[in-house]
């Protein structure tokens, strides 16, 4: 039997180390690329465009006829690539790369890069991770304010941290199980009626959006804010800043346009707020909240219809009202429960929920959405 050379072994090892890119991209990958059309490209880098929301590597690729064309290879965000040890200099113009990925649906010279390997050395340079930090062996107690109220944000003493890694990334009615990807794209379109109690028009619109692979998502196309439950489905997390002096809570997001939501805990009601602002309903609505024991209960109304309130494209109308419950059963877990009342789009109120994990000792990443770079 012939013993393979160390070079061959190294090449084989490199080829087995390539990993599928996890689903944390800025947009539904399948909206733009076709997972039934895998492709392999080998070429020379002409430009590395290291910008949000996605890094692009441009490379000259020679086709079988000997003609050279420039391709754009889309990769994960700079945040994801940095987390994987990739920097803006990891790949430079002149490098020869081998790309394995997906072809663009529109037939253009674009590809989604699942793996990137330096052809000269066989070194894999694309590696991304999207796994939640390991849970502590023993749950740590819920951090509290001096009066005993749970803290939703960092613990005292200037500790860093934020909430991320939601256990669900799309709204589905409690007790319903349907297969979908991280962007809420259904594996089986026939499951659409089970996701939520949709009115006929809303169900048809939801299916239409699904059939178009969520490519019309205004959050991705136009950087519209992820209002409603979608705020807690984002890959780069959320942060609560509790302004106890003014009795309000800021909810910041780690992506988008650096916008934020305010939850008032000063006892104010909705009267006067909604009525005074009928012509200017909001992406995040108007939230008032109170503590019920260990749970913050927020009542939010006044949403506009200019955005998708969940991954996956479930419709809503201006009649949307959310009752959200936030609790922190232990230091590292945020429990999010939401009841959706929208007689404009749904046949009855319904509920969903998930948990988020505490990411300790890190600032929330800032992933700025930029128009016209879908």
């Amino acid at each position: 039997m012939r013993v393979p050379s160390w070079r061959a072994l190294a090449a084989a090892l490199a080829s087995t180390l390539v990993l599928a890119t996890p689903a944390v991209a800025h947009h539904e990958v399948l909206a733009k690329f076709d997972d039934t059309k895998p492709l392999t490209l080998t070429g020379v880098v002409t430009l590395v465009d290291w910008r949000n929301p996605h890094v692009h590597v441009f490379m000259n690729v020679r086709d079988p006829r000997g003609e050279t064309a420039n391709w754009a290879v889309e990769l994960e965000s700079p945040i994801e690539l940095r987390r994987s040890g990739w920097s803006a200099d990891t790949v430079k113009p002149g490098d020869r790369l081998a790309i394995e990925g997906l072809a663009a649906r529109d037939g253009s010279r674009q590809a989604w890069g699942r793996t990137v390997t330096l052809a000269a050395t066989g070194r894999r340079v694309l590696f991304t991770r999207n796994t939640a930090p390991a849970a502590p062996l023993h749950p740590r107690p819920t951090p509290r304010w001096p009066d005993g109220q749970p803290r939703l944000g960092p613990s005292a003493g200037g500790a860093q941290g934020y909430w991320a890694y939601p256990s669900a990334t799309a709204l589905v009615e409690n007790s319903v199980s349907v297969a979908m990807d991280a962007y809420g794209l259904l594996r089986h379109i026939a499951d659409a009626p089970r996701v939520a109690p949709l009115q006929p028009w809303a169900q048809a619109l939801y299916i239409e959006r699904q059939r178009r692979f969520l490519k019309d998502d205004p959050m991705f196309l136009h950087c519209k804010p992820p209002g409603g439950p979608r705020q807690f489905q984002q890959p780069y997390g959320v942060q609560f800043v509790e302004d106890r002096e003014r009795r309000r809570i800021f909810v910041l997001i780690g992506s988008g346009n650096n916008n934020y939501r305010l939850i008032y805990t000063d006892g104010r009601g909705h009267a006067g707020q909604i009525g005074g602002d009928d012509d200017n309903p909001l992406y995040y609505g108007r939230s008032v909240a109170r503590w019920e024991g260990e749970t913050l209960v927020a009542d939010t109304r006044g949403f506009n219809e200019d955005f998708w309130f969940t991954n996956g494209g479930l419709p809503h109308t201006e009649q949307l009202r959310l009752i959200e419950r936030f609790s922190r059963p232990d230091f590292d877990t945020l429990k999010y429960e939401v009841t959706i009342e929208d007689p404009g789009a749904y046949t009855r109120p319904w509920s969903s929920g998930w948990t988020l994990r505490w990411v300790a000792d890190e600032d929330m990443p800032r992933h700025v959405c930029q128009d016209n770079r879908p």
Partner: protein
Amino acid sequence: MRVLLLAALALTSVLPGRPALAQEGHPLKGSWLGTWSGNKTHGNDVVIVMNWDGTSITGVINPGTDNLAIKNASLNPDGWLVHLEADAKDKSGNPITYVIDGKIENLPLANRSIVGTWKTARESGPFTISRQ
């Protein structure tokens, strides 16, 4: 009134281009502008404002000028077929009923269109409006 409507349309046409406000809710909700060609009673140009309250579609044709209340409006999501009716009066003061049937085109776009036909007992023609 017709002059006012035409003036408004002319003004709209010379204003700097501005994309339609997105509307990701009920597909009919919003302001629509277009033509019901051949309409000798109310002119070629038409403005329609529609709303959705969760159970019914309401609206007005040519608000501010003709103020024709929409009745019997429906949207069939199976094909996105639109049906609108509105009572009016012809130039002699006789009652007429407009019946508009069309289909939503470019559904995902904010400036989606409804394309179809309009008719009364005596007149009919093509109908096209786009969401503003």
